[in-house]
């Protein structure tokens, strides 16, 4: 009687009309109980389905380590390129400033050298003019 029921289920099964529950019934019948001889070819099939479900993935799944280092490299490269960019800009500015300063210092030194020259020469002239004054005064005294 049971095998008649199972036969019916198998027919349904082949048409793809069995529910999951009915398929479980089939699996149980073929793996646990004694199988009627005319249904034996199905036994391997259902036993296979049940055993195939036992296989599992044993390796550990690696997520973060590889992923993390990848990301770190990305950030590192971004940061490095920004630093390089900023460095070049700042360096260029500094260099220009330094050059300007040097130029100004040179100009200042030249200018002050020139001014000093003028001032010493002027001083000489003033002394000469001062002696002229004393000469004029004595001449005036004598003439009067």
């Amino acid at each position, binding site marked *: 009687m049971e095998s008649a029921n199972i036969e019916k289920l198998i027919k349904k099964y*082949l048409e793809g009309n069995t529910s999951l529950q009915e*398929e479980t019934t089939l699996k149980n019948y073929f793996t646990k109980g004694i199988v009627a001889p005319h249904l034996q070819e199905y036994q*391997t*099939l259902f036993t296979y389905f049940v055993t195939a*479900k036992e296989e*599992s993935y044993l390796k550990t*799944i690696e*997520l973060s380590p590889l992923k993390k280092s990848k990301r770190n490299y990305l950030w590192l490269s971004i940061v490095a390129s920004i630093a390089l960019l900023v460095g070049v800009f700042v360096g260029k500015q500094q260099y220009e400033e330094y050059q300007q300063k040097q130029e100004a210092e040179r100009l200042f030194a030249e200018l002050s050298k020139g001014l000093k020259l003028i001032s010493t020469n002027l001083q000489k002239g003033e002394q000469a003019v001062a002696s002229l004054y004393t000469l004029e005064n004595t001449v005036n005294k004598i003439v009067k």
Partner: protein
Amino acid sequence: MNQSDFLKVVLPFKDKVFRLAKRLLVSTEEAEDAIQELYFKLWKSKDKIVEYKNVEAFAMTMTKNYCYDRLKSKQASNLTLVHSNYLEKDTALYKKVEYQDSLSIVHQLIEKLPDQQKIIIQLRDIEEYDLEEIGKMVDMKPTAVRVALSRARKTIREELIKKHNYGIS
């Protein structure tokens, strides 16, 4: 979503995706690579995962597509030869060692099915999903899934009966 949350969502179906990948790619190593790849991808899009109602179905679809890609690229390259050689050796070994083991016959019969039927048999008869879920995973209507399923089951049964009658098993 941090790592432990992610793993809680994603680990329960690791065996299922692994078995599907192995069903399609045959070799265990390739299937392991596929799973590793799958979990990388899932982890990368972990923020989107929260929005999916059915991560499992999504992962199944991803696995299926990934395996198809692998198979396609293998067909296009020299690897095909290497791989099929390896395969033949493997089955020859099977034949010697455990040909009496009728379970491996079922395994081989499923292997001979077209890829789509292979997936559907795997998802239905081994993993026990209902037809609608399978439809979502393989992007087919449930009725079409049922037809393919019925076809695959009948093919397997016929082959099995043939083998039975020849008295090989």
